[in-house]
């Protein structure tokens, strides 16, 4: 059942993405509206997918790569819809929805059967640690999208080509503000994610920190965002530099999440990832 719902979600995200891109390319106001509703419906169906899978599995379904990717996409879309309430940044949807779509398409190509839970993961720390880590990552994904749009808009304004596309993008200040807010919310979440991970590691592996690749890369990611936050608050880094940092930072997030598991071996490798 949850697999069928997953497919419904995928189709809704696909349609939402098409609508948003239509808005971006052909300036149809109505298309953004359609895109938002499709994405919203997709989110609802994604929620149901998650709940059903939770009930069927008996544990939080964030164990294998299929589940993690799906969970990540779910959070990214959720945060975007939340952000949409505060800022009228319709166009962000045209960047967020393809990202969510890519994640979920990848998830779709992986085996969807519910895996047996390895004994080491049988703990309440699993949902807590994973949720915080992904919450932070999802917010950084939004900062990444805002950063990309910032660079596009900035180069348009700098090169004095302000007709067409530029008119559909939000103002530089709004994009920079999203960057800042994502940083101030995402950074504490990432920190909690790492700390809960360390505490859990103490219970499960008997040591807070064992320099396994995932831990190392989380730390690198954390340091990157810490540096950006520091520069922002102290030196007043903003705009282009902050946007580039948000993009680089998200690169580190992705590597920590995916690269480490696909390329490096470590304690965090529990299940067969590549399918």
């Amino acid at each position: 059942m949850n697999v069928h719902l997953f497919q419904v979600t995928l189709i809704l995200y696909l349609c939402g993405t098409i609508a948003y891109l239509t808005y971006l390319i052909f300036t149809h106001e109505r298309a953004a509206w359609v895109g938002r509703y499709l994405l919203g419906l997709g989110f609802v169906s994604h929620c149901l997918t998650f709940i059903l899978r939770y009930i069927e599995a008996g544990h939080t379904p964030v164990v294998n790569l299929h589940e993690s990717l799906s969970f990540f996409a779910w959070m990214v879309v959720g945060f975007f819809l939340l952000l949409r309430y505060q800022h009228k940044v319709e166009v962000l949807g045209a960047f967020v929805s393809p990202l969510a779509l890519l994640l979920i398409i990848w998830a779709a190509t992986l085996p969807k059967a519910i895996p047996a839970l390895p004994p080491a993961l049988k703990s309440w720390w699993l949902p807590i640690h994973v949720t915080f880590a992904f919450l932070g990552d999802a917010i950084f994904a939004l900062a990444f999208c805002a950063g990309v749009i910032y660079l596009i808009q900035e180069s348009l304004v700098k090169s004095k080509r302000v007709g067409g596309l530029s008119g559909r993008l939000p103002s530089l200040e709004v994009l920079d503000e999203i960057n800042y807010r994502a940083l101030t919310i995402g950074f504490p979440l990432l920190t909690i994610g790492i700390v809960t991970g360390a505490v859990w590691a103490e219970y499960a592996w008997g040591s807070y920190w064992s320099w396994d690749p995932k831990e190392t890369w989380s730390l690198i990611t954390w340091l990157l965002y810490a540096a950006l936050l520091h520069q922002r608050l102290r030196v007043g880094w903003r705009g282009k530099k902050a946007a580039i940092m948000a993009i680089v930072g998200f690169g580190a997030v992705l590597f920590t999440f995916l690269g480490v598991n696909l390329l490096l071996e470590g304690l965090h490798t529990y299940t067969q990832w590549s399918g």
Partner: protein
Amino acid sequence: MVGLNHRTAQIEIREKIAFPEEDLDRYMKALYNLPNLTEGLILSTCNRVEIYAATRDPEKGVEEIKGFLAQQHCLPLPEFEDTLYILQGEELVKHIFRVASSLDSMVVGEPQILGQIKGAYRVAHATRTIGTLLNKLLHKAFSVAKRVRTETSIGNRAVSVSFVAVELAKKIFAHLEDREVLIIGAGEMCELAAHHLVRAGVKRVLVTNRTWERAMELAERFHGEAIPFSELSNALLRADIVISSTGSPDFVVTRKEVFKIIRKRKHSPLFIIDIAVPRDIDPQVHTIDNVYLYDIDDLQDVAEANIKDRQHEARRAEEIVATEVEKFCNWYQSLEVIPTIVSLQEKVEEMREKELDKTLSALPELSDKERRAMEVLSEAIVKKILHGPITLLKRTSRNSEGESYVDAVKKLFKLDEE
């Protein structure tokens, strides 16, 4: 519709023909009282005077309106008759849709005209000089204008140089409310741009000038603050938008200066508009991060690109108008088709009853059963005969043939002679 506009009539005539806004209700009543008009509305702006009316007799109606214009303005008709254009039917529908969508305006896409039509509509509505037809037409025109506005970007591009400044500022800043504008020097364009910015929400205006009195004078006009020219660097620290237009032959603000200032500002963005020729601001300033410098040529280019864009959007708008005109005309034709069908049915039914009575009274020996059979027979024949014409009328009511079929049916069955 009878009217004239900026393309057909010189300003001298337009100002004579225009109806003053405050007396519009009186004029509309006078128009409505013309014997051949059933509905009437006057649209009078500085670029056009148009009289929309519904009449049973178009020829007489038009003559009456012409006479009305001449009489109300005490102007002999021949003096302006050749500036008038007269539109009917589909042409008229298209015209009002285009006018409301600002496709017929002097500057295509300027939104004022819609407000002016709405104003005229309100007066006409209040004085009850319009009925179903014009009501429907105007409401449709409003919704077409809205469709054009939401589905094309015809209206949201600045086409005047001073307004481009506002458009650009909005690309950099989210809200203009808590921003400060600094005017360096003076000049009409400078003032106009600042004025637009204030209208767009900017709260504080700072003015600096080598001549202190002139700075004071301009600051007063904007309820702003005059700043001594020697304090320019400090002013640049505060301001978010700078408009410069001095007569200085050298750069007033150099790259080095701005570079220092932007660090002190903690890289808070600075938008500089250099209207002066020769330029006041070192063009190299534009290479600094978070500083955006536009000179007069850049503004001109943006305005021109926007005008081109509007023309492109106008083509899309014309397509929308065309489909809406078709829809409206279909609706209008169906108004005529339905009464025709009804009277056709009535007329034939009447004939059938008459002939049946005649036959039956001539054949008194028929049984009840036979009488009923004859009745059913006659009904069936009538139904079969009418089926073809009625379906044809209904089907063609949606295209341009409809009108000629309605005419043909009316003539064939002599429906008008009653």
